[in-house]
């Protein structure tokens, strides 16, 4: 009984780390540009397909690590392209509705382009560790999941260092806090926009490889990460990066435990139940930033 609890918590932590990774990009983009990007999960989908193609070419763990890097590169470029072509032209005259609609348009477009080019059948990224498992105490998990967790944590840690230590990182945070003040301090706001989208999309791409290896890869897989990332982002307060990290873990564990002890069928709805509660009680999220929207 106790080991089951530990096991589920561990599973939750691992999947939660992937949620965090996706949500960080979403929350950064929201913080800096006030864009709610409903196509964010499709960056993960494209990342996952990058891995499918690369690993058909270079199998094994080398291919897997290589495809994580490749996914970051490919999806990073996709992020910049979408920012430039779709979001940037709307700057200055958008409303919430416009922004959400245009991102839904992008979501529909990417999802169906993927269906055209990659076909509708789900594909598997073969486990680079050939299904090996590890046992610690009373719990066990696959080596793959340990690596997924490890990669997520490394990426999150690296981002934290970048945001806190580097000049550009500080500029991103400054823009997120107050765009005009940042501009007055000589921050090139357009560069920050591009950079934010690049980093955010690349993180989602990496997460896509991890997510796709754990589950399956198909053109419609982006919807779920999008919704989960939004749940996490709202949980942590939109624009709040630290909130997104904690929010991801909270959602992962809540889903895992809730799915096990409450109702498996409603596992994917648990996040929505939580945010409806949170929004009714604390409309700015658990780690509520003072200014939002």
């Amino acid at each position, binding site marked *: 009984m106790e080991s089951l609890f530990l096991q589920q918590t561990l599973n939750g932590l691992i999947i939660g780390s992937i949620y965090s990774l996706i949500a960080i990009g979403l929350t950064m983009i*929201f913080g800096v540009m006030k864009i*709610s990007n409903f196509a964010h999960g499709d960056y993960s989908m494209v990342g996952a397909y990058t891995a499918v193609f690369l690993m058909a070419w270079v199998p094994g763990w080398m291919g897997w690590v290589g495809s994580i890097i490749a996914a970051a590169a490919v999806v990073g470029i996709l992020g910049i392209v979408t920012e430039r072509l*779709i979001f940037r*032209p*709307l700057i200055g005259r958008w409303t*919430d*509705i*416009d922004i*959400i*609609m*245009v991102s*839904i*348009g*992008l*979501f*529909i*477009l*990417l*999802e*169906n*382009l993927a*269906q*055209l080019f990659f076909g509708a059948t789900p594909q598997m990224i073969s486990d680079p560790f050939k299904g090996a498992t590890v046992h610690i105490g009373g719990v066990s998990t696959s080596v793959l999941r340990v690596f997924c967790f490890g990669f997520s944590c490394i990426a999150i840690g690296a981002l934290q260092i970048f945001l806190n230590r580097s000049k550009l990182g500080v500029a991103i945070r400054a823009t997120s806090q107050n765009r005009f003040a940042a501009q007055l301090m000589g921050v090139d706001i357009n560069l920050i926009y591009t950079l934010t989208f690049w980093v955010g999309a690349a993180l989602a791409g990496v997460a896509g490889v991890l997510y796709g290896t754990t589950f399956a890869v198909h053109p419609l897989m982006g*919807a779920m990460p999008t*919704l989960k990332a*939004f*749940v996490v982002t*709202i949980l942590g307060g*939109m624009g709040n990066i630290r909130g997104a990290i904690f929010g991801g873990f909270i959602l992962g564990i809540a889903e895992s435990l809730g799915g096990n002890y409450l109702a498996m*069928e*409603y596992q*994917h*709805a648990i*996040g*929505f*139940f939580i*945010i*409806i509660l949170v*929004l*009714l009680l604390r*409309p700015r999220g658990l780690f509520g930033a003072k200014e939002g*929207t």
Partner: protein
Amino acid sequence: MSKRLKHRLRSVAVVAALLILPQVVQERYFLHIVVMAGIYTIMTMSWNLLAGYSGQLNLGHAAFFGIGAYSSALLAMKLGVSPWFGLLGGGVIAGFFGFLLGFPALRLSGPYLAITTIGFAEILRLVAVNWVDLTRGSLGLSGIPLLTPIRLGSWGMEFYFERDYYYVVLAAVVFTYFCMLRFTHSEFGVSLQALRDDEQGAQSIGIHTSQYKLAVFTISAFFAGMAGGLFAHFTRLVSPDTMSLHVTFDTLTMTMIGGLGTTAGPILGAVLLSLLSEWLRTLEDFFRMDIRLVLYGFLLILTIRFMREGLVGVVRALKEGFSSYGKGRNAGGDHD
């Protein structure tokens, strides 16, 4: 006065054309598409009232459609209620859920409201999938009864043919259209637009914004539920997919492309996109793939980028272009 007369004549012509349509084109498949377009028109008009006129970004509209469809089907199948009352019942039950969803909307806006409404629809979809005793789960309800025949002397409607459904759906569309027109061209509609443009400002001049929000959610949900009921008795099959995100996305794409916040936009969008997507299906052999949704996404992005009032805005711009062309100015715009 002559303008008004012209307007009247045009309305009469449109209605007459719609009434004879099934007599002219008798192909059942075509009529099926037109009926579905009509059902979607009710969806887009009701969504437009929420999103276009009151600025409430509801991304859970499919839930109301599904609630209406399931309620209407179950009332007829389990309780033996006449489908005609079932349509109304489906609308009322959906309206009740709309009222409930109005409460979070009192405090939330923008992305927060969008996600809450998506969550609402996803939770209901999962209920429909898992409450197998009532809904038969993912299999869906099948064998939903047809609308009961109407007999008036020698004239009657049997509802074995698409043609009969066509007239019922046409009546429903016209009814919804006039209701929307009443709502939007009244104090109620003006207050909604004030609420959309400046909530605090609206409050400060004495508009009870919370009452208006609850009212508009209820009304919008009622019509979406009615559309769901029509769908149930027409296709005779209701599955949890009726509540999926894609139904909402289809609805909003049609509305946006037609013209958000305009009277004609939702109708134009729903009808044109329904016909367009059927036409694209015939081209499938040529493209060797289904490019319908790719086009939807593409058009949606273009609409927001270049023509914020959708097709209605384009038509307006063209008209202005033509009239100013006569005065020797440059015609048209760079709209495609």
